[in-house]
């Protein structure tokens, strides 16, 4: 299969066999960007010439018998907070408007090492500090399912690029929801691996202890392929985990018979749109039919996890941007400036109390999860809403169900699980145990194989 909505897993064998040309793929992706991105605003920068040069080099290498793996010659996009050598990197902020790094972020190095073709940089919520990608400096990014709506955020541009068939996969970052929630809003897959699994080196921080790097893709198999290329220890990242990475693609189709999955009703379904509740309940049934046991159980201290995550983001973001806020406040939107100022209102004692509570929450959550393989929840209790009329109470709800797993560092994925009556996608979140991305992906793949949500694409 080819075409804009083919998956990496589908095209990789054809590329390896010389049946699909990386140059043709890159040209088609660039043509699609040229045709649709004026309306969607997914890309901050399109590096067309560099992409074509990379595609030609990739193609020549394959022709010479040196195929380097499933990302070889595949067009991908990179969120504009990852440093890219010689290419402007803004983090969606005027603070970095003219920053042209002289190095690549570790995740970008990994993509280049896998010979992926980088099409350009995707837009995001200002400083990744928000969940709508309505950027006051570079314009609102638009949801391809309904252009009047936001695509979620902060990795909104990456989600839109993948959902709209402009890239086969994209790099995102997630501090509270920023891979999974835009994936849910755009009807694609978003994987936030275990904390420390993928190097953050060269990614402009929002909150050091909560920031995660991961892929957005059109299928679970593609998320596994990108994860495999990106994961691994990096001594340049102070939070990097030196844990062995097992190939998640190997056991992807092994099924979920006998797996025990927690469905926590309390907290995660509060204020949930009825259509989303129904979709996640139906997803639980699908997993049960595939052989898993679904068990309802409340997770310990989950409301405190939300609160502690929030306080941690606020304090760490205020610390990282302290000088920027004081010396260049005019470069910040009113919204982000207020968030940074609020973070200044927390004391060192309060931050450390929050980290003590974080340890307790993590330990008790791991203890509760010991007999189980995974947790399922709605990715977000609310879908995308109109850019011009987003209900204020949706703000905290958009990241409520996801931030507990930034705080505790557990791996989590969002997969499409249906559409609202208004035609907007909804997401199912699957959370696993530390460093067991393989199980998260396996459960997600089993769900995906039993449903057809991932085969639906927006009409542009």
């Amino acid at each position, binding site marked *: 299969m080819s075409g804009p909505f083919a998956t990496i897993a589908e095209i990789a064998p054809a590329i390896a066999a010389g049946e699909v040309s990386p140059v043709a793929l890159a040209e088609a992706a660039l043509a699609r960007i040229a045709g649709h991105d004026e309306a969607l605003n997914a890309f901050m920068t399109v590096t067309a010439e560099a992409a074509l040069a990379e595609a030609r080099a990739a193609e020549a290498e394959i022709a010479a018998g040196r195929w380097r793996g499933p990302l070889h010659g595949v067009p991908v996009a990179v969120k504009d907070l990852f440093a890219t050598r010689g290419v402007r990197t803004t983090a969606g902020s005027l603070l970095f408007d003219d920053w042209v790094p002289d190095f690549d972020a570790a995740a970008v190095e990994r993509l280049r090492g896998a010979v992926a073709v980088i099409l350009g940089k995707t837009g995001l919520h200002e400083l990744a500090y928000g969940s709508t990608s309505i950027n006051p400096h570079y314009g609102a990014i638009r949801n391809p399912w309904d252009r009047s709506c936001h695509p979620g955020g902060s990795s909104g541009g990456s989600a839109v690029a993948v959902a709209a068939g402009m890239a086969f996969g994209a790099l995102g970052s997630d501090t509270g929801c920023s891979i999974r929630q835009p994936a849910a809003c755009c009807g694609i897959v978003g994987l936030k691996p275990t*904390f*420390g699994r993928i190097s953050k080196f060269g990614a402009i921080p929002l909150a*050091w*202890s909560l920031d995660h790097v991961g892929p957005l893709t059109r299928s679970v198999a593609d998320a596994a392929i990108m994860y495999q290329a990106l994961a*691994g*220890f990096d*001594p340049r990242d*102070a*939070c*990097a985990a*030196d*844990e*062995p*990475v097992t190939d998640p693609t190997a056991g992807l189709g092994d099924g979920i018979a006998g797996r025990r999955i927690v469905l926590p009703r309390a907290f995660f379904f509060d204020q949930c749109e009825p259509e989303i509740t129904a979709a996640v309940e139906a997803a639980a049934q699908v997993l049960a039919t595939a052989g898993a046991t679904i068990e309802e159980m409340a997770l310990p201290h989950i409301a*405190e996890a939300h*609160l502690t995550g*929030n*306080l941690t983001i*606020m304090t760490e973001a205020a610390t990282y941007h302290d000088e920027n806020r004081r010396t260049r406040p005019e470069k910040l939107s*009113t*919204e982000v400036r*207020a*968030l940074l*100022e*609020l973070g*200044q*209102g*927390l004391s060192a004692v*309060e931050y*450390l*109390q*929050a*980290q*003590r*509570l*974080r*340890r*307790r929450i*993590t330990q008790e959550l791991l203890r509760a999860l010991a007999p189980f393989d995974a947790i399922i929840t709605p990715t977000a209790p609310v879908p995308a809403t109109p850019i011009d009329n987003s209900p*204020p109470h949706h*703000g*905290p709800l958009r990241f409520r169900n996801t931030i507990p797993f930034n705080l505790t*560092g557990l791996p989590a994925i969002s997969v499409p699980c249906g559409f609202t009556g208004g035609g907007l996608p909804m997401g199912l979140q699957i959370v696993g145990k530390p460093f067991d991305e393989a199980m998260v992906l396996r459960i997600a793949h089993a769900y995906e194989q039993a449903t057809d949500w991932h085969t639906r694409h927006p009409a542009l």
Partner: protein
Amino acid sequence: MSELTQEQIREMAKSILGREIDPSEVETYRTRLPYLVRAKQALRDWAPRLADDEPATVHRLLDRARATGGGRS
């Protein structure tokens, strides 16, 4: 819960931000300041129960792999 008055929001701002906010800023802080006040109180409520808990350590200063610049990949 009834909506807080402008004056209540401004009092919270004075206490937490250490400055007066002008009326045009009230809406920006209307939901966030009360949240922060509740969050601070929740932390205070938890403190007596955290006697044996050290802070979570997510940054590791030293380990062998970092010291040698190597490690598994």
